[in-house]
């Protein structure tokens, strides 16, 4: 009886299947469905092509993007809150972790903000050393961005060439600060140590070898037909919209606005150096790529000038209240011990006031708005993170383009998740 029941049941299923429209594969929508339905595509949060953790929910009409909803905050670490409980020198490691492709710029920007608040004058040699390190950081930042853009268009070779060069710059960082990626470099009042002979030798060697590699990279990409087809007129933004969106840095300059903090509000002796600000015309992915390439050459010019004219003298300010004394002196010298204790315990006297200082970061104007009530920690610290501000334009830039264009646009904007989410 059980056997009969089963057979009858099977029979019914086969009969009902015959009544329906024949379909080759029920999982694949029919031709009619394509004309009527939009596809919702989850790009991210962990997608290998986004190089960071951010989600975009895209509405797709076939291959075209109709609209997008970006979600950020996946690696939010509440730096602004944490900074309200830390003495000034303990905030430097937080800045490392914002734009981790160019940590030294963040570090120096923070030190300069505190120096401005405290009224500390940094000697010329320290300023030049800072300029060299900041420009090295800018080069590594742009190397990553442009190398990855190559990878996203299918050209892996250039990326590998550039990674090799970035490695050499990291060795210079290591010589100067002991760290490679999150450098925690410099101190309030100057540098923690002078350039050693090894650091100078490594820098000179790198300055000799790097231009040839960079020239080869440019030769591979700049006029490459396949590459240009992928990036020209992709993800463009007009100068007017870019300004309205608060763009700064290479992304704004690619749109044709020559705003550079290093020139408009020079800090750390940038006025001593001769360099040019490259600008683009259309603000598309190709312009951003070319502006970054040219900025690498200009940074090399600055480094060469700074190294040739590196002044003699102390590498930190004579400000014992704020600058950590050398460890040897702490063990032997009473004053050094007292100052060491006061600084480490956060007992230094900070004036009441508010200060805004900005530096030209790898991605644009990196600003620090510091409100001090005279206490050991900032009362309020706000980071103006260029990535956070310009990433909101992403949706507008990719609507109407294809998914593969969206990937290269994201890549060329150089959105760094750490800086985006802080």
């Amino acid at each position, binding site marked *: 009886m059980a056997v009969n029941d089963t057979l009858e049941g099977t029979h019914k299923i086969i009969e009902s299947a015959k009544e329906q429209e024949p379909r080759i594969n029920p999982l694949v929508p029919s031709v009619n469905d394509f004309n009527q339905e939009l596809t919702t595509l989850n790009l991210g949060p962990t997608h290998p092509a986004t190089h960071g953790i951010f989600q975009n929910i895209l509405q797709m009409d076939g291959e075209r993007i109709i609209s997008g909803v970006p979600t*950020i*905050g996946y690696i*939010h670490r*509440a730096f*602004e*809150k*944490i900074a*309200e*409980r*830390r*003495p000034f020198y303990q905030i430097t490691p937080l800045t490392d972790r914002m734009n981790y492709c160019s940590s030294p710029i963040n570090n120096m920007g923070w030190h300069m903000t505190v120096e*401005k*608040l405290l009224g500390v004058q940094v000697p010329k040699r320290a300023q030049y050393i800072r300029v060299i390190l900041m420009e090295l950081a800018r080069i590594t930042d742009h190397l990553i961005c442009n190398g990855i853009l190559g990878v996203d268009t299918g050209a892996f070779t250039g990326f590998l060439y550039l990674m090799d060069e970035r490695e050499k710059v990291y060795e210079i960082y290591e010589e100067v600060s002991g760290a490679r990626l999150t450098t925690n470099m410099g101190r309030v009042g100057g540098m923690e140590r002078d350039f050693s002979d090894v650091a100078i030798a490594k820098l000179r060697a790198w300055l000799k070898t790097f231009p040839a590699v960079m020239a080869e990279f440019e030769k591979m990409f700049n006029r490459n037909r396949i590459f240009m087809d992928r990036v020209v007129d992709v993800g463009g933004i007009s100068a007017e*919209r870019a*300004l*309205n*969106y*608060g763009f700064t840095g290479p992304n704004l300059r690619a749109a044709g*606005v020559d*705003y550079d903090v290093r020139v*408009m*509000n020079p800090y750390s002796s940038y006025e001593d150096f001769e360099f040019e600000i490259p600008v683009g015309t259309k603000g598309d992915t190709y312009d951003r790529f070319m502006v970054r390439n040219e900025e690498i050459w200009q940074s090399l010019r600055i480094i060469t000038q700074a190294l040739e004219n590196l002044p003699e003298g102390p590498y930190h300010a004579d400000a014992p209240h704020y600058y950590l004394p050398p460890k040897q002196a702490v063990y032997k010298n009473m004053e050094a011990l007292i100052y060491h204790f006061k600084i480490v*315990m*956060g007992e230094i006297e900070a004036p009441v*006031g*508010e*200060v*805004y200082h*900005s530096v030209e970061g790898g991605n644009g*104007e990196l*600003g620090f*708005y510091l*409100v001090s009530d005279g*206490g*050991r*920690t900032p009362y*309020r610290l*706000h980071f*103006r993170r260029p990535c*956070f*501000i310009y*990433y*909101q*334009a992403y949706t*507008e830039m990719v609507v109407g383009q294809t998914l593969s264009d969206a990937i290269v646009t994201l890549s060329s904007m150089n959105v760094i998740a750490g800086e985006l*989410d*802080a």
Partner: protein
Amino acid sequence: MADQNESIPAQEAAAAQDPAAQKNAQLLSLLHGLFGEDTFTDVEEPYGLLTATTTRERIHDIIAGLQQDQQLQLNFLTTMCGMHFPEREGQELGMVYHLHSLTQNIRLRLKIFFPIADPVVPTLTDLYATANWMEREAFDFYGIIFTGHPNLIRILNVEDMDYHPMRREYALEDGTREDKTDLFFGR
């Protein structure tokens, strides 16, 4: 500490020679001309950056007016952020706006303060596209409500968070711990 014996005219003469102070004095007179003298209170120049406090009723008009003004061209919103001063009765919450003129290289800082019980501020998203996420951030951190904002939801924290973490009543350390007092280690 400034020299107490120095006479006030001498200080004014010194200020007149300082180009940054001159620039700020010019900017302030232009602002007074545009929006009226009584619009701005607490005018200061901390570290050379002209800072003025105004009211939330006027802030939108002022920033719109500065954006349109051809002489100043203060049409770049560098950044804006919230603040919290619990001890200021009726003025607990604040917003700070940094404006920048890229053609003339003038910076201006505007502040508004308002009670925490009524944290409502007009949005700037109709003037600046960049204000969108900055205002969402201020809402997320401080619970400031921007009227007219197209999409005022949390941006960095999770959606189901039921407090605004940057307000000063939320201590960073676990409040139940007794082994870490603030006596020696900070506020």
